[in-house]
């Protein structure tokens, strides 16, 4: 019988060592960790709490200021990288599960946990390709212009009280400004590639981001108005005291503003259904059509950093930031958990909805979202005005309202968990026997 032998794929040098170690360590280590899953989880929590304590007592009041700055910047850089790496892997797992697939399963031996690392290694080793007709300096610069502002946004995002690189008076505006700069990197990439598809992606991004910045900012300002500060730490601290103290539930306008903000943030992160700048069925790959290797990775990192950053903003401003919903001690871990949940919803939306057309994107923003957020802004400010002791009847109503809205939020969350649980319990029936039969390991 004729057989075709494929030459085995060989990693070379450092990457070979890394992949081998990752696979070996993952193959032995992670099943071991899983066996003691609860113990590992508890240990991780203990370690994290110890880390939190360490940071608060030793690193924050640290030494000469530049040592503290250096430590924090390096830490933030590592955090952004981890967010991107786990985000990319998570997105592939999430998309796999949504589509009744498994997603990456092999690299690293446990649920493909090292897939992003392996991909990164591959990208680093790829040929550095620049199209001959490209505007070379701009082509080289563009990925940095996309990634660096996305990272800079983290300099002002507090992860907890005191857990921030620089406490700034206007940190909210700073984060928004940094997220907005990313558009220039994208336009630069699209234009410098000298490809028409890239140019289309860039033009779409330009139109989309400039328009959606306004409803995004207005929704946030409605919340800012009710706290009276642009400082993210103060905004987060204003909601201390559990679930019903969250700004989301403070008045009906803020409740709606959270959703308008979330929609606008999807558009500003180029996430589906607003992923027109890179819409792969129309524009091949949009603005990064001509990019490969590490430059492409930087766009990817920028996207995931941006995703987490907008989710972090939503968490701080609407969802109580680092405060515990059940009234326990506040901690950066709460902040991470809430932001991760919002990132997961972004992924969920992406793998469910089709893409909107560009005229509909503009239409939705200018004709619906923009007037609506303006209305929310005005409504929220009037609410602020009337919920004062001068209007005792309204004020008492306003004091009761958070409980009503909070219950509504609880119901929504409960519905989500019920759906998830139902899906998990009946996963065989939902997916269908046949599909499971075809899955590896079934």
């Amino acid at each position, binding site marked *: 019988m004729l057989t075709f032998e494929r030459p085995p794929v060989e990693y070379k040098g450092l990457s070979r060592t890394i992949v081998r170690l990752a696979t070996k360590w993952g193959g032995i280590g992670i099943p071991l960790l899983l066996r003691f899953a609860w113990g590992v989880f508890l240990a991780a929590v203990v370690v994290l709490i110890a880390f939190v304590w360490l940071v608060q007592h030793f690193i924050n009041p640290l030494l000469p200021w530049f040592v503290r700055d250096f430590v924090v910047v390096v830490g933030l850089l590592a955090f952004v990288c981890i967010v991107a790496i786990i985000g990319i892997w998570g997105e592939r797992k999430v*998309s796999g599960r949504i*589509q009744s697939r498994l997603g990456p399963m092999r690299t690293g031996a446990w649920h493909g946990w090292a897939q992003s690392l392996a991909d990164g290694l591959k990208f680093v080793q790829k040929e550095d390709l620049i199209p001959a007709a490209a505007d070379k300096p701009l082509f080289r610069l563009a990925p940095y212009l996309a990634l660096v502002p996305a990272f800079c946004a983290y300099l002002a995002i507090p992860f907890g009280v005191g857990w921030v690189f620089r406490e700034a008076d206007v940190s909210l505006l700073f984060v928004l400004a940094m997220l907005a700069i990313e558009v220039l990197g994208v336009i630069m990439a699209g234009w410098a590639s000298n490809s028409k598809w890239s140019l*289309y992606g860039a033009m*779409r991004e330009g139109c989309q981001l400039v328009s959606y910045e306004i409803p995004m900012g207005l929704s946030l300002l409605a919340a800012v108005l009710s706290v009276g500060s642009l400082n993210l730490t103060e905004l987060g601290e204003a909601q201390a005291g559990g679930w019903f103290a969250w700004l989301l539930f403070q008045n009906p306008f803020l409740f709606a503003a959270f959703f308008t903000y979330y929609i606008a943030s999807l558009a500003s992160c180029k996430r*589906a259904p607003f992923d027109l700048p890179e819409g792969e*069925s129309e524009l091949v790959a949009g603005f990064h059509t001509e990019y490969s290797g590490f430059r492409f990775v930087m766009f990817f990192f920028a996207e995931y950093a941006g995703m987490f950053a907008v989710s972090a903003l939503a968490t701080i401003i609407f969802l109580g930031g680092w405060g515990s919903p059940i009234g326990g001690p506040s901690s950066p871990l709460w902040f991470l958990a809430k932001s991760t949940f919002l990132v997961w919803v972004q992924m969920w939306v992406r793998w469910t*909805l089709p*893409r909107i057309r560009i*005229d509909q994107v*503009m239409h939705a923003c200018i004709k619906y979202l923009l007037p609506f957020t303006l209305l929310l802004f005005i409504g929220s400010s009037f609410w602020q005005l009337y919920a004062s002791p001068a209007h005792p009847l309204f004020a008492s109503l306003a004091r009761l309202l958070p409980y009503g809205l909070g219950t509504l939020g609880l119901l929504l969350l409960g519905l989500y968990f019920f759906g998830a649980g139902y899906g998990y319990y009946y996963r065989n029936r939902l997916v269908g026997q046949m599909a499971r039969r075809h899955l590896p390991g079934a």
Partner: protein
Amino acid sequence: MKEIEVHYPPEVLQEGEVPSDIRTEELVLNMGPQHPSTHGVLRVILQTDGELVLKATPYLGYLHRCAEKIAEKVTYRQFTPYTDRLDYLAAMNNNLGFALTVEKLGGIEIPPRADYLRVILAELNRIASHLMATGSYGLDMGAFTPLIYCFREREWIMDLFEAASGARLTYSYITIGGVREDVPEGWTQKCREFLDYFEPKITEYNNLLSFNHIFIQRTANVGICPPELALAYGLTGPCLRGSGVPWDLRKAMPYSRYGEFQFDIPVGRGTYGTVGDCWDRYFVRVEEMVQSVRIIRQALDKLADGPIQAKVPRVVKLPAGEVYYEVENPRGQLGFHLVSDGGTSPYRLKIRGPSFCNLSILPVLAPNCLLADIAALLGSIDIVMGEVDR
């Protein structure tokens, strides 16, 4: 010669229409031959003004494999595998069309079991082909998940085909005089299981994709092809029925055993927009899957034991003469015009590919679309380049 004034749809864009006055530099965009939404090696030259498409010109021939010329060099039986490669997503239907053409000219009678098997497999292949079409249409619209779901179901059909013919894409199963071999033991049972499993899934896809608000916004009132235009351009299949013309060869001129079955012809009704828009063309395919399930059920009921091959010599020799025979493929009417000089291979074989004729509507519908609508339009026409170029 008669002149027909073709009335183009007055406005393709509805809301948020790009103001017709803001004109900037025109751009010539080379879409394809390698492009995710051209479904193969189609090349479309687009003249655009920003996002607005002014003119679209398809250029064909990247997948031309001289199928018609090859037919003149090989025997009738030997040509069957070449028909697989015309519309490679509906190889069973191509086989059926070619076999029926040859049988018509040769006056070959088919045993009933073979006939019912042919119908069952052709309809299963129609479902598989429509699953591919609807799933990848979702992908064209940016929804990735429906494609995977559709492929999941298509996988089962592929398994059924593999059990019957041994192949998963190019079956060559329906041959001249019947089918190549009988289906294995328990195959009909598996087939019924699939139908029971599949029917409720269609509702699921409708909820996920067909009735999705964004999807409707993207496809309704886009690429409207009025019935007169569809007839003038010779559209067939779901493209024609999507324009509201209830024309289906299986009903209009029943071939094989299609006259015996109860089924409806789904037509576009303009549910969310105008009759003949992309959504109608898409939804006709979804509804046709339901009808195919109906047909298969009836055929399975009628399937009785018996021979599966008529007595046909190994090398088929047809009498001199010519015949034109058309069958209803998933993409439209596939026609074979066979001229025989009495030898063992055709003197001339002209193939009418439905995708080729359907594609001719693209330059008419494309002007005034947005760039993203081109993907919607191409996906709703649902071409297979293997058949366009032959």
